[in-house]
């Protein structure tokens, strides 16, 4: 498809941080070696955690389902390798201190038995079957939110969907997982997208990719026509890969406050999820491994690895050669939106796009200095909020004012805290405000329900 005259809308705000991608973007991704033990965290998706269906001591094959979906908004889990099921115990998780995890003790044979037949001629297959396959394979949004994928592909009947958007922007600094994926598994990404498009019955497939990945763009363009995908290079600007920003950049449509992409006729899928869809449908493999960037200046060999879900971070860092200097922070995800971790015992989950170590020099320490109202956060906020004013309101516990200042629209991209000269922990203030407001809304709802009954 020709790229000439493709109009790109530019969102207002955003920043351009040092992206650190040159550390790892030229290193081909490698398969991680097999480990002795994996710890698969039970709760890996938004919604309800899946139900455990194996017992301690039971033998499982690679790709065998070990937990099944509990309800609609839920995704099953699969064994990362063949072996024995160990304890189900609480371990430190990526976003909570005590999360139950299933221990899988590898037997070293690494034998597949998924019980899923490859659907080679998916173009002729029934849409319901395809959807079912994606749900069974446990695919979730692999960009970060971990929203079960099959739900996105089942829009309510009254919503008209006309565009499938593939998110290959990878605007987070340091991360190169999607970059390597698009370069090395181009066919899988595009074919997965075509499958998703068939399910959604849409003609238009747009792939947004930041133009700092020319090799990936070239590789995609070679095959794009074959699958009806338009590859759109976008200017490098964080958060170009934010869902709302990406939709705006590619289509000029604004997702309304509190709305969903499907309200404006779009469905957004991460390129990693597309590759996983391809694997699930055409190969019959569930989601048990993913591209993950292990990077940062303290890492000896920053590189991208195909690691299995449940790999402890300590081992993953070992793949990349370990550390060579002092690290101040361990981050799951990118430096702008990732979660800092307190121990190396956390494990890789379906949405771990990167494992990042930052030295003390690179990370900025937050202070409790006052807001000087410079307005840089207002100028740069991609959601057009007033982060400074909101944080002042939260600081003095005026949550209603914060709500009036639309704190609930904040997507926690971190641009405001990145530019704040007072180095205020703005995102933490917003999380606090959101949790308070949600708690209050739930209390009000409960009260109303009580009055009603």
């Amino acid at each position: 498809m020709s790229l000439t005259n493709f109009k790109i809308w530019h969102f207002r705000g955003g920043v351009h941080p040092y992206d650190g991608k040159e550390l790892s973007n030229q290193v081909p991704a490698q398969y991680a070696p097999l480990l002795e033990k994996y710890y698969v965290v039970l709760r890996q998706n938004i919604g309800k955690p899946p139900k455990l269906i194996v017992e301690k001591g039971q033998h499982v094959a690679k790709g065998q389902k070990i937990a099944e979906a509990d309800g609609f908004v839920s995704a099953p889990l699969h064994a990362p390798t063949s072996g024995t099921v160990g304890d189900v115990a609480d371990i430190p998780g990526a976003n909570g201190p005590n999360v139950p995890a299933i221990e899988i003790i590898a037997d070293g044979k690494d034998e597949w038995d998924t019980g899923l037949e490859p659907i080679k001629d998916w173009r002729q297959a029934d849409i319901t079957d395809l959807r079912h396959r994606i749900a069974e394979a446990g695919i979730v949004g692999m960009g970060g939110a971990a929203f079960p994928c099959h739900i996105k592909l089942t829009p309510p009947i009254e919503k008209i969907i006309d565009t499938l958007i593939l998110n290959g922007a990878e605007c987070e600094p340091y991360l190169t997982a999607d970059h390597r994926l698009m370069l090395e598994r181009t066919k899988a990404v595009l074919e997965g997208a075509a499958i998703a498009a068939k399910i959604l019955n849409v003609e238009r497939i747009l792939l947004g990719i930041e133009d700092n990945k020319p090799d990936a763009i070239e590789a995609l363009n070679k095959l794009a026509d074959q699958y009806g995908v338009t590859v759109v290079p976008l200017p490098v600007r964080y958060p170009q890969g934010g869902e709302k920003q990406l939709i705006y950049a590619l289509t000029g449509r604004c997702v309304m406050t509190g709305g969903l992409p499907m309200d404006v006729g779009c469905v957004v899928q991460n390129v990693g999820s597309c590759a996983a869809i391809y694997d699930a449908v055409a190969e019959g493999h569930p989601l048990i491994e993913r591209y993950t960037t292990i990077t940062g200046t303290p890492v000896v060999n920053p590189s991208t690895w195909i690691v299995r879900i449940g790999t402890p971070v300590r081992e993953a860092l070992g793949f990349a050669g370990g550390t060579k200097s002092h690290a101040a922070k361990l981050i799951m995800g990118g430096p702008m939106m990732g979660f800092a971790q307190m121990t190396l015992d956390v494990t890789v989950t379906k949405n771990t796009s990167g494992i990042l170590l930052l030295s003390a020099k690179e990370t900025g320490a937050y202070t409790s200095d006052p807001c000087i109202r410079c307005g840089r956060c207002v100028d740069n906020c991609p959601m057009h909020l007033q982060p400074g004013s909101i944080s002042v309101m939260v600081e003095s516990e005026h949550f209603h004012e914060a709500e009036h200042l639309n704190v609930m629209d904040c997507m926690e991209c971190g641009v405001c805290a990145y530019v704040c000269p007072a180095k205020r922990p703005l995102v933490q203030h917003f999380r606090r405000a959101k949790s308070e407001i949600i708690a209050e809304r739930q209390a009000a709802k409960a009260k109303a329900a009580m009055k009603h009954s």
Partner: protein
Amino acid sequence: MNDTMKQNEQKNMPGCEMLVMSTSPHVHEGSSISKIMMQVVLCLLPVIAASIWHFRFHAVLVIFYCSAFCLIFEQLWDMALHQKSTLKDGSALVTGLILALNLPPTAPWWLCMTGCFFAIIIVKQLFGGLGQNPFNPAAAARAALLAGFSGPMMTWTMRAPAMLPPTVQKAAADFVTSATKHAAAADFQTGATPLGLAKLASGSESVMDALSTSEMYWRYFIGNTGGSLGETCALAILIGGLGLMFLRLIKWQVPLGMLGSIALFTGIVHAFAPELTPGPVFHILSGGVMIGAFFMATDMVTSPMTGWGSLFFGIMIGMLTCIIRIWGGYPEGVSFSILFMNALVPLIDRIFRPHPFGWTSTRAAGVQMRRGEIK
């Protein structure tokens, strides 16, 4: 079991013993409050240099007094409250410098001290320090001094080249003799500022004309005229102000709105009543308009946070300045206008609140989409 497993059995990662927990983002652009303040000081340098060039030793003395007193008061306050010293954020120095540039060259040390006390302690620290003060410390201190010590605040001395040229003096003398009620106006020759003269001789078209010749404009522009330390040389302020804009330390909407509204307003008044006031160029170049527009009204803490709000803020300051200058009791109204508009900032922020992204109704977008207008 294979060898790779053993090979990778590196249980202890050196250097990961003390991990820091915090919310995202984990990187920072590298700016800081003290850096911003130092950049402001840097942009003030041309203005300081011009004031020293024009007023020589007087300027050095006043600038020294004001910065020293501001720093001392800031430190004393921190000591009294047993808190960490806030000197290093540099805001006290900026306040001191801007206040100095707003004082007449003959300001005695006690005047500087009173001003600094008012600016630092009363206007800033009582409200909680940096970032909490609703009023601009320098503007408030200047207004307070003007109200309390109008004598020393209105005494202008200047070097011979800065005296008003004979044409202007003659026109003024004619007007004064013709209107005997202005008996107290004898001191214009020793060095009234052009603004003071314009106020004094309100009603005389000849004086207004004499004040707004191109030769006079050039004098105002390079600062060869009477006035406060920093306000005379429009050229130096322009250099510093453009530096501020270039470094993105101020919002361009404030100076634009302020200068634009002054030009428009005085232009209209001058066109209809030329005897009341000189033309727009005179008003922009004389008095505290330039330094007010670039250095005082744009103060981050006390100006609105949004672009449109800033524009409105600037326009209103310009309007109020003109009203005070043309009809009010004071010859100059910039600090009063800034102070007044500072009080309005919370309301402006409330009214000009930005709409969040996606505020445009989806229904409209949906309709357009179905019609095929968006593709």
